[in-house]
């Protein structure tokens, strides 16, 4: 197992390097000079040259990349142009909030997805199956930012049950697990959970139907095992794939939270990205994306290893 983990680590290294190159180049994709956002319009050529030298933009690209990578590997993601604070601190604060939101949404999505998926897989072509299928198509087709708006319209503007935006009553960015803060989490988390619910329901339905059609299930029943016993076997067989999908969904939600966080003004990475884009704060943009993408790479690795550990059918070669 340890050898397998090592092999996966080796395989993931080039991808991580690729990701860092893409993130590095992002800044250079931007039209004009990366410094144009902070330099005054009437800056003299001398000032521009000095600034370029100060930020290292006068060196050739590969050299700039290596210097940047060296800093990143030492935990230095640069300084935000807008606030002047280190990017790492800003991103870590936001990541915690995003993780809370994405984890709760994934947990909700997993619970309902597995529930619908099992019912639909056990009762093929029943009403429950059709409802589950409709729900999964809805989950992947609905523009979640619009769904968020509709939720705010219904539960905040019309019924007045839940707060429409923010993460807490004091307007601070620090979420705490108490009742007041929980009320702020409900709408964004439920909105976000619609996507994984649909995807997990669809996958689990197919998995369960597939497992139930296999010979070993028939053999178990022929042996006289009761339905509960058979159910346990189905769960054990479906678990590795279902858990893997759940892990990946967490990553997708974390990386794709910008739209929902914008709708609900949730102080996470999406909200940070939004600010970075509109203030043309390129170091912050670069840093946030690097952290999110690396988290996704790491999560993929963990999911892979977990799936292999849970499922003896997967070869560890």
């Amino acid at each position, binding site marked *: 197992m340890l050898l397998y983990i090592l092999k996966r680590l080796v395989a993931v290294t080039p991808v991580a390097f690729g990701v860092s*190159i893409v993130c590095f180049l992002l800044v250079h994709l931007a039209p004009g000079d990366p410094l144009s956002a902070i330099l005054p319009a009437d800056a003299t050529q001398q000032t521009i040259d000095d600034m370029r030298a100060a930020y290292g933009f006068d060196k050739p690209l590969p050299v700039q990349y290596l210097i940047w990578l060296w800093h990143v590997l030492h935990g230095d993601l640069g300084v935000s142009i807008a606030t002047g604070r280190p990017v790492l601190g800003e991103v870590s604060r936001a990541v915690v909030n995003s993780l809370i939101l994405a984890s709760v949404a994934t947990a909700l999505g997993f619970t309902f997805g597995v529930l619908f998926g099992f019912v639909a897989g056990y009762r093929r072509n029943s009403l429950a199956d059709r409802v589950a299928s409709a729900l999964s198509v809805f989950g992947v087709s609905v523009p979640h930012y619009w769904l968020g708006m509709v939720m705010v319209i219904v539960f905040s503007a019309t019924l007045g049950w839940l707060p429409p935006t923010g993460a807490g009553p004091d307007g601070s960015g620090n979420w705490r697990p108490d009742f007041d803060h929980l009320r702020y989490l409900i709408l964004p988390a439920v909105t976000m959970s619609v996507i994984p619910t649909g995807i997990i329901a669809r996958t689990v339905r197919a998995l369960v139907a597939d497992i139930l059609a296999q010979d070993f299930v028939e053999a178990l029943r022929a042996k006289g095992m009761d339905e509960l016993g058979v159910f346990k076997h189905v769960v054990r067989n479906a678990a590795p794939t279902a858990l893997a999908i759940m892990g990946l969904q967490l990553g997708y939600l974390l990386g794709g939270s910008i739209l929902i966080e914008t709708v609900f003004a949730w102080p996470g990475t999406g909200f940070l*990205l939004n600010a970075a884009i509109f203030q043309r704060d390129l170091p912050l943009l670069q840093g946030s994306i690097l952290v999110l993408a690396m988290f996704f790479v790491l999560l993929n690795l963990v999911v892979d290893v977990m799936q292999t550990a849970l499922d003896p059918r997967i070869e560890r070669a």
Partner: protein
Amino acid sequence: MSVPVTAASVALDGGVVTAPEALPESGAFVASRGFWGHVVHRLVRDPVAVAAGAVILIVIVIACLSPWITPMDPYKGSMLRRLKPVADATYWLGSDELGRDMISRLMLGSRLSLFIGVTPVVIAFVIGSAIGILAGYVGGWTNTILMRTIDVFFAFPSVLLAIALSGALGAGIFNSIVSLTCVFVPQIARVAESVTTGIRKRDYIDAAKLSGASPLTIMRVQVLGNVLGPIFVYSTSLISVSMILASGLSFLGLGVRPPEPEWGLMLNTLRTAIYVNPVVAALPGLCIFIVSISFNIFSDGLRNAMEIRQ
């Protein structure tokens, strides 16, 4: 079963075999109908897919004709008649925050929304298929280099990649199409590569080689004919995501710029009106949802009709 037939027909027809007939599932038993006839026949018996197709068709017709058929001027506002509710005597679907007629703007908005949603998938279909088929057919180092590069893009969740690219490139229709194309090229290329690798070792490719066909002819006739179907179906399934993402970029202010009507942008500017006139504020999103779910259902129907397994 139809595999040797394909090779033979190529030899007999001198390489003139229409692409779909080369698919293994081709009308082996319904030969008179041909592959596409078979697909259409199965598709029309799927009422849900037909309904979805009809919705798409209606939206496309509205998009094409909108400059001439909108009941009012979509750009002309009236400060006195802002945010009228739905079913107003003058404004059938109400008016927006600048007093412009909603139904006219929604109709004209279908143009840009469809354009920025569908174009990236079309471009990515061309580029992604080319990369994937090349990697799959040539194999070896070419495959390794191309596919490992593709893997890097898979390390980004698609929403993040789209927003990162258009955030760096800056707002605008062109930039949003470029970023979404970059999101879909790797996905399509990966599917194209796996489909192509799957057929590369088939007997009919060897048969064509033995019959003296040049690599280019084999690629055009045997390979393209067999892989384009599955890649096409996969690509249609991406249109729904692309519509949501493209309008999402406009919603964030990264795509279409005012005063042009586009559903995502309209949804953004109407966000402030949810306390005054919630129904009108939600309308543009409903349009995105209807089109997106229609594309999803239609693509599912098409996949079933073409008997392509996921």
